[in-house]
């Protein structure tokens, strides 16, 4: 496992303590075992506000597993994840996940219209103090080249790419601090993929306090939208 700069020199960080100054998220010696095999071992890095990180590596290197581990969706066999100065195991996971949102490679929507899917998350206890902001969604949709009609489409008739957009907006509206994007454009056409990239950039530029990790099979895409990368070699 190496982390190296792509376009920008890598930031100095104290991986030993995993508490580099100003870091949003610190990962210290994280290791993942699956059926007795180490997928990756001893991963350490920090995520700073404004970070745009690519996670690269061959198929089976555990890129998805790394993002899932960062979201606390899978157990890890060693190491620590520290968010907001608190180790993950001491946090209330739903709250943690409202800040660090993982987006699945294959979007999963429920029955109903696009808008119902977007509104649904506000019924979760952790988001109950917020309200659905239609204008914000319309603003995002505009960046994606879609109109308000899109909100009334039933989720069942959406293409894979459109479903990915809905899943993406569903996460974005919750204003996460870190987005974990697992091949978000894999099922999108080139045009929509570019618009989605633009949307992510726009979202991040809003506050510059947010960061994302992005996996992709497209090196030129990663070149465009990330500044540094975490390389997984497979087999540790």
């Amino acid at each position, binding site marked *: 496992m190496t982390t190296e700069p792509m376009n920008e020199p890598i930031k100095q960080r104290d991986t030993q303590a995993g508490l580099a100054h100003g870091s949003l998220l610190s990962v210290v010696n994280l290791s993942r075992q699956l059926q007795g095999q180490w997928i990756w071992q001893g991963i350490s890095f920090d995520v700073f506000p404004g970070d745009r990180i690519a996670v690269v590596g061959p198929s089976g290197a555990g890129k998805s597993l790394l993002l899932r581990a960062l*979201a*606390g*969706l*899978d*157990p890890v066999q060693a190491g620590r994840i520290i968010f907001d100065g608190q180790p993950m*195991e001491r946090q209330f*996971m*739903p*709250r943690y*996940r*409202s800040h660090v*949102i*993982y*987006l*699945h490679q*294959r*979007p*999963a*929507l*429920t029955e109903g219209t696009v808008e119902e899917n977007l509104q649904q*998350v506000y019924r*979760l*206890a*952790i*988001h109950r103090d917020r309200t659905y902001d239609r204008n914000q969604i319309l603003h995002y949709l505009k960046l994606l080249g879609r109109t308000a009609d899109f909100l009334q489409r039933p989720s069942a008739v959406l293409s894979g790419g459109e479903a990915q957009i809905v*899943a993406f907006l*569903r*996460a974005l509206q*919750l204003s996460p601090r870190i987005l974990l994007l697992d091949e978000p454009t894999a099922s999108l056409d080139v045009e929509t993929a570019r618009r989605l990239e633009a949307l992510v950039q726009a979202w991040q530029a809003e506050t510059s306090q947010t960061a994302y990790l992005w996996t992709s099979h497209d090196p030129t895409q990663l070149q465009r939208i990330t500044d540094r990368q975490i390389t997984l070699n497979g087999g540790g």
Partner: protein
Amino acid sequence: MEQSYIQISNGQLALAAALILINVILSVVLQLGLERRLAIASVRMIVQLLLVGYVLEWVFTLRNPLWVLLVALAMTAMAGASAVDRTRRRFKRIYWNSFFSILTSSFLVTGLAVSGIIRVEPWYDPQYIIPLLGMVLGNALTGISLALDRFTEDLVSRREQIEAFLALGATRWEAAHKPIQEALRTGMIPTINSMLVMGLVSLPGMMTGQILAGASPIDAVRYQIVIIFMIASGTALGTIGVVLLTFQVLFSQEHQLRLERLNKVK
């Protein structure tokens, strides 16, 4: 004991078996291929029921509550195990979970019924407690196996949706709520269906038995109502219990869905 019903002799049993013989002959003549299975099923049924009859004769003579409890526990263990045997996905503690759910639900319901409602004296009189428990167990086991099967299948097939919700900040309870609801509904379907058509489509076997044994239909109906409530409550409790225990196994404290704890059988 006073005999208010006609006893059935061995000869009469043989005559009853002749009813099946008609079908066997028909099957042979018309080459329907039913005769073998019909014969095997008939023989098995006769042997099993006669054995149970002798066992019950012995059980009903028991006057020691410990022995009665032991028989009840053995029945419960068998019910708990066969509820699991019908599921397609298992996890490590599934047998224990099933046994625990069926034990607490059926013992609670049967205990309350014999001591508080029917007021059997003494409470452990096997003539009451064993058949009543048997009926509660039989229905609870169906509910438990249906609910277990539905719940685990649902978690597997809706994994992506459940995890998407978890990833957006849902608690494990919020993420699992729909599958839990569906599992409970599925587990209760047979019980609720049979309650709805009770007396209209079918006369319950227990009631028929009591009427044949000379009880007045009104008395038999009253017994039947008590039994149905016992069955419905026992099935609901057992089903809720097993689904909640399974939920605890397959969703961790860290609000993770742990499907790797599930193994497919067959």
